[in-house]
């Protein structure tokens, strides 16, 4: 009957939060419209023919690997019963705490020619094949990213798998037939969805491929910018990367459309495995856990102990920077997510819906793309402002660009738990408070904040950890000489100092355990989806 005047303000706020996501998109796509012929011929002749096949092979290999490994493990722990099943059910998520680049550091450091494991094997007459190549990088990425698939398939099967399986067996299918013909087709959207998330992470990965000396689109962007000092070339490559991202997003959209409704109900009986099968299941789960988490963690501890003398002012400074950056980003991004949530609550307009979808799309944009895609337009803006007003603002060396890039990439991470918190504040609570004479700020303090607190805490913790782990954005946009733990790891590994990278790495792994712990607690209450735990490697 009439339009509430304040919705205009909320539309504006939502649009402003979404705008930074569009900036790198338009910048990198726009670079195709101003194609520098000389630059493009260089890129298309010397860079893309190398980089593009490697990127696609890696993408395909990792997708295949995570979907097989993740699905197999999920089927095992949800549909079958064997000793230790409950333990493995959550422990198999632990690799999420270890960013892929940390795993890569351990892998390369211990299997490299001079590495401990390699030396030991060589003394016993076993020569390892060369592993610092695309194949090795793919193995590490699979080990780090399989939990994305595992998590989604696990929850899809946990809600309905065992019951449907019972029904299928009641109709005369053998257990194997029931799994293949009923359970797996049922989870196909979940498998695809989890695989696509892992694929996006692969595309965004920078640290792992750098450690393996493999050139992909992300590392090419970094090299173009910081080795060839050509921001234009970097932006052009970001445009190519964006095309691959868009393809993945379109696939994801279709998977979402095909997602089946899940029925909930009491869990059905799991199928008890015969002794031999049970032993194989335990062996498989133990092996995965050992190779993807336990052994690398142990190696990190051993190396750290050996280099405790490295704990100096420089390292502590990096740690302080990491924490500081994480806290600032967490508070800022949680605030943005809350504003976005309120906008959606106060106004159901298309503008707000569209802005929310755009702002939460940033998780799909690789950090390298964001760094260059935000730098170029922001640098142009600063130049214009300086010229117009006679100022001398500097962009690189400020935290603004860095925080902006984090905000684009991690708003989705904060959005999910904040939204879950906001949905607890039913409209009738607002009305009840109003009838009780509690309005405005008092309503926010007395009704909203207490209910929002768990969601806000989760959002802050998740963003904090993601920012701590984040590598390419931090590396490319940090103020000169300003190190974080992730940057230290990159610098040490690029100098071949694998063992000395263990100390900063262990700090990151410990921080990374926080969201895993949160996830395990909420494993079966439906809040935790794969999108909430994003980011195990960047």
């Amino acid at each position, binding site marked *: *009957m009439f339009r509430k005047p304040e919705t205009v303000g909320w539309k504006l706020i939502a649009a402003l939060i979404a705008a930074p996501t569009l900036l790198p998109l338009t910048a990198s796509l726009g670079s195709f419209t101003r194609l520098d012929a000389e630059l493009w011929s260089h890129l298309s002749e010397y860079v893309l023919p190398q980089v593009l096949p490697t990127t696609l092979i890696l993408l395909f290999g990792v997708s295949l690997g995570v979907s097989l490994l993740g699905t197999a493990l999920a089927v095992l722990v949800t549909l079958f019963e064997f000793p230790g099943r409950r333990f493995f059910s959550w422990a198999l998520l632990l690799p999420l705490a270890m960013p892929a680049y940390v795993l890569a550091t351990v892998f390369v450091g211990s299997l490299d020619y001079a590495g401990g494991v390699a030396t030991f094997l060589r003394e016993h007459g076993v020569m390892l094949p060369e592993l610092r190549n695309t194949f090795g990088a793919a193995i590490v990425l699979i080990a780090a990213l399989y939990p994305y698939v595992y998590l989604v398939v696990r929850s899809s099967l946990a809600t309905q798998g065992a019951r449907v399986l019972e029904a299928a067996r009641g109709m005369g299918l053998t257990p194997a037939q029931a799994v293949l013909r009923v359970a797996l087709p049922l989870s196909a959207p979940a498998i695809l969805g989890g695989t696509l998330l892992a694929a996006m992470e692969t595309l965004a990965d920078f640290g792992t491929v750098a450690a393996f000396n493999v050139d992909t689109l992300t590392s090419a962007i970094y090299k173009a910018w910081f080795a060839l000092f050509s921001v234009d070339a970097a932006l052009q490559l970001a445009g190519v990367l964006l095309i691959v991202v868009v393809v993945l997003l379109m696939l994801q959209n279709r998977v979402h459309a095909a997602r089946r409704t899940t029925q909930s109900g009491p869990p059905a009986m799991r199928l008890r495995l015969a002794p031999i099968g049970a032993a194989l299941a335990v062996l498989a789960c133990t092996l995965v856990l050992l190779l993807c988490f336990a052994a690398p963690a142990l190696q990190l501890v051993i190396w750290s102990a050996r280099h405790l003398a490295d704990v100096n002012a420089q390292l502590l400074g990096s740690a302080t920077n990491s924490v500081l950056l994480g806290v600032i980003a967490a508070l800022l991004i949680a605030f943005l997510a809350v504003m976005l949530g309120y906008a959606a609550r106060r106004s159901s307009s298309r503008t707000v819906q569209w802005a929310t979808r755009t702002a939460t799309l940033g998780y799909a944009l690789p950090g390298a793309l964001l760094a260059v895609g935000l730098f170029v337009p922001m640098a142009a803006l600063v130049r214009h402002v300086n010229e117009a007003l006679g100022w001398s603002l500097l962009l690189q060396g400020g935290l603004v660009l860095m925080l902006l890039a984090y905000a684009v990439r991690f708003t989705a991470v904060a959005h999910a738990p904040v939204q879950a918190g906001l949905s607890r504040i039913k409209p*009738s609570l607002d*009305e*009840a408070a*109003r*009838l009780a004479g*509690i309005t405005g700020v008092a309503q926010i303090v007395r009704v909203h904040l207490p209910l929002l607190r768990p969601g806000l805490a989760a959002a802050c913790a998740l963003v904090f950890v993601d920012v701590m782990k984040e590598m390419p954005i931090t590396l490319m946009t940090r103020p000169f000489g300003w190190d974080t733990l992730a940057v230290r790891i990159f610098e040490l590994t690029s100098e071949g100092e694998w063992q000395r990278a263990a100390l900063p790495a262990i700090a990151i792994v410990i921080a990374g355990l926080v969201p895993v712990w949160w996830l395990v607690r909420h494993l079966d209450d439906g809040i935790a989806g794969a999108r909430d735990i994003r980011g195990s490697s960047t």
Partner: protein
Amino acid sequence: MRAGYGAHTVLHALSLRLAPGTVGCLLGPSGCGKTTALRAIAGFEPIGAGRILGDDMVLTDAGHIVPPEKRGIGMVFQDLALMPHLDVASNVAFGLHRQPRAERDARVAELLELVGLAGSAKAYPHQLSGGQQQRVALARALAPKPRLILLDEPFSSLDVELRERLSQDVRAILLHEKTTALLVTHSQFEAFAMADVIGVMRSGHLHQWDTAYNLYHRPADRFVADFVGEGRLLPGTRRADGAVEMELGVLRAHAEIPPPGPVEVLLRPDDVVHDDSSAVQATVTARAFRGAEFLYSLRLDSGREVLSLVPSHHDHAIGCRIGIRLDVEHLIAFAI
């Protein structure tokens, strides 16, 4: 009042008056506009035309709304809207934040006693049963002694048995507090159990605003006759002398019925009496055992159906032919 969203009108010329201290009810199928009316009265929705008055003071008219918190209204929401982070006592005290502490505590204790939750003051809403949560919501709404309390489908989340018991308890509590109340429901049993005056609504129209007795025995139109209680319409002819002729006999009529011509007569199950000596016979087509009575569906020789309530020691099988006669106290007839 008239109200709606955009071009869609939800309420057409709704008009009603609730005397102080009485319990009113808007009864109707879902989507009839009853909740919109309630929210307009609470001040949450604007109205397109008309006025809402409280104690002869204008609360809402077409261009002006007294905000909800200034109306002196309490509300029990359909989803109860209890604050999940506050315990029972704090929930009840929620609307009393401007009162001195001692006064507030006394009022909370008094209300918890009244709704039978004195022992649960420190419990949190999720630790209570559905019925207990219901009582907390009622106590919270009553706490500031509102002039009017609004109840929006208050029992919709409860099971049937609990509803019956609770609706009687709630009526007793409302009478004890001497509050004026307006209830919205789609269940006529709740309406009958709680309200002094009931308005039957459909598609935004108020069909009748009357006592339960009159809604049942003197329905204003076919919709009310059909919606409230059970019964069947049977064709007949209104004669010039005032009597109505129909296949089950001739009925004497009072003044309120339509002019001479073809009519439809409403026959409630208690209007059709089982009588073995009657010449009129009908075939049992269905029966429902209700303890003290059977509700029989009977097919007349014309093929039309009537319902009959018969003491349950008259046990007739389906297909039996039994004698019936009419025993109509108030003849209800509608012109065709």
